[in-house]
């Protein structure tokens, strides 16, 4: 359902970004990049409370006319950004949450791989397949 999925590292560089091939990828990259500001804003707003209380799911970052951008932050400040098509009204918040949960689980699996150095680009096929499944659900 997602049109674009991105994993941003703590230092705000992308670890993984993938868009549906049909769309102009550059546009999505730009959207993800701009949404990082919103993510930081949300983190700082909630960060005053204890970290434990901070929820990982950030919710809708900002909507555009065509797309909606959702955000999710892990405890290690790794951000997941998802861009979904606005036309897909069937998507509910729970579904988005579940998708983020899947992303997080897959990301954890990638981390468990001893051959993966944190900070590298994610080249895991399992992760790829999982993201593909999320993106292909649209069809």
């Amino acid at each position, binding site marked *: 359902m997602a049109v674009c999925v991105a994993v941003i590292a703590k230092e705000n560089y992308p670890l993984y970004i993938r868009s549906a091939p049909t769309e102009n990828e550059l546009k999505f990259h730009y959207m993800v990049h701009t949404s990082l500001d919103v993510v930081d804003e949300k983190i700082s707003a909630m960060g005053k409370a204890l970290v434990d209380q901070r929820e990982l799911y950030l919710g809708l970052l900002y909507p555009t006319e065509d797309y909606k951008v959702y955000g999710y932050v892990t405890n290690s400040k790794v951000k997941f950004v998802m861009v979904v098509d606005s036309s897909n009204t069937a998507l509910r918040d729970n579904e988005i949450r579940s998708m983020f949960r899947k992303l997080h689980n897959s990301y954890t699996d990638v981390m*468990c791989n001893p*051959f993966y150095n944190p900070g590298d680009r994610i080249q895991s096929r399992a992760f790829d397949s999982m993201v593909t*499944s999320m993106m292909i659900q649209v069809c």
Partner: protein
Amino acid sequence: MEAAAGGGCGSGPPLLLSEGEQQCYSELFASCAAAGAAVGGPGSGPPEAARAVPSAATAAAGPVADLFRASQLPAETLHQITELCGAKRVGYFGPTQFYIALKLIAAAQSGLPVRIESIKCEVPLPRFLMSKTDAEIRFGNPTELHGTKVQIPYLITEKNTFKRMDDEDKQETQSPTMSPLASPPSSPPHYQRVPLSHAYGKLRSNTEQMHPAPYEARQPLVQPEGPSSGAPGTKPPRHQASLIRSFSVEREPQDNNSNYPDEPWRITEEQREYYVNQFRSLQPDPSSFISGSVAKNFFTKSKLSIPELSYIWELSDADCDGALTLPEFCAAFHLIVARKNGYPLPEGLPPTLQTEYLQAAFPKPKRECALFDSYSESMPANQQPRDLNRMEKLSVKDMADFPVPTQDVTSDDKQGLKSTADEALPRDVSEDPATSKDSNSLKARPRSRSYSSTSIEEAMKRGEDPPTPPPRPQKTHSRASSLDLNKVFQPSVPATKSGLLPPPPALPPRPCPSQISHLRVNSKRSAQRRPPTQLPNYGDFRLQKQSEQAPEAEIHPQLNRAPSQAAESSPAKKDIPYSQPPSKPIRRKFRPENPATENQDTSTAVGGPASAATVKPHAAVQKQSSKQKKAIQTAIRKNKEANAVLARLNSELQQQLKEVHQERIALENQLEQLRPVTVL
């Protein structure tokens, strides 16, 4: 090989189908569509109700469901597939959905996760897919019912295969209820696609409905041995009985293998041994796991690229916990071996490398014998040498590549190469328990040694009594030895000027000669008459003087007079009791000595008998003094010895004195000689 998606896939990802796949899928679809018109076979259960009037462009749900069920996948997987392919969404099985579903079924059967992305994935082993699709194809002819004559043997073979499938529990209940349509095992698996399609065509012509059993049965038949026996079987495919017979015959020897035809991904016994040894070298406990960092270091030695190693890890670490258990480790190792030998890495973990399979096939390295015997026996002869040789070469190469080959493994390799697996297996197995026993015994021995040693020690400790304390040193006077009287009277010859000799008891001052003479007179007088009470004093004095004089050489002649004083012995003895009261210990020593010396002198001299004579008249007194006599006599001896020593010392000192005098005279002479020169 890869063609564009056959049929519109809609907005989904392009469905990449090979030519063969395209053909099969389209035929299947057509058959399903056609079958939709006909009723599903009796006893097909639920699909009957689900029979829907198929449209021209859609496959009927009934036959499709039958087809899916025939794929022997669990119901959940089938539901997933239907969801993914979009049929539910669309509401019907269009060509796109059907193709996607078929591909997903193939992927699921090959061990890939049921995801949409599987569609995009390259088929790991075309033949595998083909065989599956062949089965599907067969099933995809649900158009016509078939004679029950095929049914029974079909069911039998079906059950045989069911027993070997992993996830068959669900299917077993279903299969009997399935329409007992025997698919002609017309085309036992071929690796070429053409015969498959040809077989498919034959199947279609036979208009037999697919059935799960032949579908599965095809799987073992996919194994390379199949073609030889299968080919003749396929040619006359029309005869179902013969086909089934050959089919069952073919299948039985292969059933034990497993229904997975992916040979390169199967671990042989030797490889298994090697992997287990390597595991043990990294982690001694076979039931525990290797941490990620340890495994990373180990696998990095294989010099594969990091992305490939990362991918292999992804495949093998099934539970994604960052650690490798023994089956996971074996799978990873095997994948590395295969990769190093040029095999492309699979998209998903092959079934033979999955943890459950490995654990089932290799429950424990020491208990493999039973399973492996059955496996080895069941392995087809044709296939076995080929694959084993291949895998043995793989293993040998691998072991050569890896810098950590063990001697045991190499020896096993050589043995394996020379012999068949049947021989190798029991040998390996025998070696394994032998080594295990050796290790156990080795482990046990030190324990026994330790126990025995402790017991012996304890016994020793208990047996020994506390050692008797060393004998106490006799109380000897170390410091007081100088005062030891015994030494005083010992004839210690080497006497220095300083007088190492124990200084003699303090000598009373020497009496003047007049006194001496006086004493002599007194002694004489006392000898003649009994001296008054003054006698004791005189006696003492006399005795002392006599003792003083005794050691003196000048007085020696006076000593000679002692015998003359024999008469004095009695008064001397009498003096003794008198002399004894004076408490001066020093004098006491001399007192008994003096009378002892006197007694000795008297005894040694003629005065012996005189003393005896004198003794006799004094019988009363002598009784008292008898004891004193003995003491006196011993004292006399000691005194004599001391006298001798002192006499020598005296003589030496006298000589030294003379010498000194002479030197003095000489010096004075020299001085006088010198003086007149200076003095003027």
